[in-house]
């Protein structure tokens, strides 16, 4: 067993995992907000389209979605790099869950806040931007934190489309060096430490958003 060989290889894989997590999270975040708000739109057609997206991406396997973007799209002439396919697939998959978080949080802002916005003559978009969404944000952060850690772990699927992430690095090491127990234990520790870091990051974010910790009143 040779830690000077294992650790650099795993660290390199962990960086790829981190990169994939953050990129997918960025895609998922944008998708979550846009789709979550469209689900609440006045326009039925838009609402319907957003619902179809959510049901499809939430209702099918993330791994198969990944294979679809990586193996099937090229057949239709859309050739994505492994990382691009992975980030888009995971971003869309987690965006479907995230959009429900956004939708629920926005719906949970008390009716009195909407009424105050009307009474102060805010147009609907401005009311959402200045009054409703900032309050909903506080309620979104804890479930977003869960999704982020889930996403970190889901990036291990990327090892199946040739991406050299942490899981891939562990598997390669086992193939070349043996030491199954030691290596997979180290891989678990790496995931655990990264999850811990992301969790702390989200806690710090929660502290910075007013009302996220202290109820926020009516």
């Amino acid at each position, binding site marked *: 067993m040779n830690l000077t060989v294992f650790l650099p290889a795993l660290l390199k894989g962990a960086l790829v995992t981190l990169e994939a997590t953050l990129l997918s999270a960025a895609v998922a975040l944008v998708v979550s907000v846009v789709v979550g708000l469209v689900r609440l739109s006045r326009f039925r057609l838009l609402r319907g389209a957003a619902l179809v997206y959510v049901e499809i991406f939430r209702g099918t396997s993330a791994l198969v979605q990944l294979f679809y973007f990586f193996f099937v799209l090229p057949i239709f002439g859309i050739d994505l790099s492994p990382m691009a396919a992975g980030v888009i697939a995971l971003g869309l998959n987690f965006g479907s869950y995230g959009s429900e978080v956004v939708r629920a949080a926005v719906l949970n802002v*008390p009716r*009195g*806040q909407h*009424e*105050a916005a*009307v*009474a*102060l*003559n*805010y*147009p609907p978009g*401005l009311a959402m931007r*200045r*009054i409703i969404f*900032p*309050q909903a944000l*506080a309620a979104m952060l804890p479930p977003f934190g869960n999704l982020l850690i889930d996403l970190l772990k889901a990036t291990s699927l990327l090892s199946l489309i040739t991406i050299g992430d942490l899981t891939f690095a562990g598997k390669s090491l086992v193939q070349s060096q043996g030491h199954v127990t030691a290596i997979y234990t180290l891989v678990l520790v790496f995931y655990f430490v990264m999850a811990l870091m992301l969790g702390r990051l989200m806690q710090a974010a929660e502290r910075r958003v*007013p*009302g996220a910790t*202290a*109820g*926020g*009143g*009516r």
Partner: protein
Amino acid sequence: MGADPRQPILRMQGVSKSYGAVQILRGIDLDVEAGQRIALIGPSGSGKTTLLRLVMTLETPEDGTIEVEGELLGLRRVGDRLVKDSGAHLRSVRGKIGMVFQHFNLFPHMSALQNIMDGPVHVRGLSKDQARERALDLLAKVGLRNKADSLPRQLSGGQQQRVAIARALAMEPKIMLFDEITSALDPELVGEVLAIVRELAHETGMTMLIVTHEMGFAREVANRVLFMEGGHIVEDGEPEQVFGNPRSDRTKAFLGAVLHR
């Protein structure tokens, strides 16, 4: 529009509203002259609050029309039909109305000052400096100049309601609606809020519609009193007359019940 001095500032014609099978307002006709301070009194469920909410466009009437200075509120005329209004025209009419709520509805993520400034800056397009100066004046007026940076949850109920009044005033409405603004307050905080409204009434001559259970306050501040029951305006007169010598038996019964508890 608005130039005719005899034109009512607010006119409701045949306004009806129900929630499900329950009819709350039954064909309300009401003309409000500029400068009138109207107290709406009556038992709960009589439609007072609903009437205010319709004027604020928080509810849509099933029937009837509401006009502000001769302009339709929440409705637009298309040919000879009336359709629901939105966009710039709705806001140009609605901007003449302000409202203070029973539960304050301050924005919890903004300081007292920001609560007051946000509308003037983002809705009315004032510069931040102008809006801040005006907001600070209004805070001083409601006696909370030193609470500018406090968040709503750091304020007492009475203080929150005073900020809410300042916030509504900052939009410079012509008609102010007060919906049971002291009902959610501890008894010892009621006075400070009523004092602000009293001062406002005597200083500005602003048109007001006040739903209240504080009969002493209604009698003192209002120059017109409406007694409502069962979705109708049962009695409409000057405070002295309605309180001192009610014509309707139902008004008498109601006042008897609330005044001699």
